[in-house]
């Protein structure tokens, strides 16, 4: 059983970018079962920019599932952004999930934007000024929604999709000082509390591709500036060759197209 997942985040579309991704996206049918978009689909979160996303990522011949990012909230037009994406057939997750029937089995995808907060031992606490408490409660509420969504799905293979990072591993390359604005450990905790096979996120443009949660779940940063291609493709399956995986180096993937 193999489920093929294509993913990218942080594409930041506007009129000046429309058409750049499309030639690569046209190759998706036959190469992937689904395309996951890890937030920051637009520059400022306007309805007009969302329509650019819809033109670029709509009608691909594979299901497209997205979460929003912080840029997609900038102009306070989230309902219009979501509406434009959904009109194009793109599913937008925020604290919920979907199950897709793929040739290799049922793929469950639970998604949430997530939020910052920092990582174990170096994180913000729900204490002090109302503004700080509101910040941390936003973090924990988002992680709680992801946890509930992950545990609600009946599927063969479970994937968590967020914009903010669930582990610090995939932030390597970013300044340490901004880690609390790039992700939080609570997302990792939610991912570890469910039988998650893979966690995908974006947001950290200077981060690195690979990481793992404390519970052993593989994490991949698919931010476009990190992967430097239109999307990455992951094969999830229980019969794949472990030796091939352990041969993966820090710099890249190992399996050419067959």
């Amino acid at each position, binding site marked *: 059983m193999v489920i093929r997942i294509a993913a990218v985040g942080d594409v930041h579309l506007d009129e*000046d970018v429309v058409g750049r991704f499309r*030639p690569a996206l046209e190759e998706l049918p036959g190469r992937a079962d689904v395309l996951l978009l890890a937030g920051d689909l637009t520059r400022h979160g306007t309805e007009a920019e969302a329509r650019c996303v819809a033109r670029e990522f709509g009608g691909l011949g594979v299901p497209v599932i997205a979460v929003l990012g912080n840029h997609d909230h900038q102009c306070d037009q989230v309902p219009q952004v979501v509406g434009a994406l959904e009109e194009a057939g793109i599913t937008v997750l925020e604290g919920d999930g979907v199950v897709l029937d793929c040739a290799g089995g049922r793929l469950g995808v639970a998604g949430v934007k997530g939020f910052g907060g920092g990582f174990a031992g170096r994180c913000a606490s729900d204490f002090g000024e109302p503004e700080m408490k509101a910040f941390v409660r936003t973090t924990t509420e988002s992680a709680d929604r992801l946890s509930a969504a992950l545990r609600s799905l009946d599927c063969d293979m479970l994937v968590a999709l967020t914009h903010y990072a669930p582990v610090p591993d995939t932030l390597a390359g970013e300044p340490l000082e901004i880690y609390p604005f790039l992700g939080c450990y609570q997302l990792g905790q939610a991912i570890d509390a469910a039988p998650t096979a893979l966690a995908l996120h974006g947001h950290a*443009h*200077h981060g690195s591709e690979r990481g793992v949660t404390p519970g052993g779940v593989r994490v991949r940063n698919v931010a476009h500036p990190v992967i430097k*291609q239109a999307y990455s493709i992951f094969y999830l399956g229980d019969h794949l060759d472990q030796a091939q995986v352990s041969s993966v180096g820090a710099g890249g993937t190992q399996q050419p*197209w067959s």
Partner: protein
Amino acid sequence: MTAHLDPGAGPPDEYVEAEIHRLLTEDPAVAEQGITVVRTERGLTLYGEVESAHRRDEILRRVAGRFPDLPITSDIGVIRTQAPTEIEQLP
């Protein structure tokens, strides 16, 4: 002893760097959070990657417009969008 700034010397470099960072994010014409500003002996260099050549040019134009007396170099690239030629298997 307290050190005082020379009123005619302009803002310290760190404040300029902070202002450029905020300009890059908060200016609606830019809205980039992934640009690094590096101070060198010859001025400032901007590093990073953006989604279009137009955005790369606009960043330099905006920063140069805000700090006309500051030597600024741009080493910003446009991110490639080719289809992947490899996959990653995750058992």
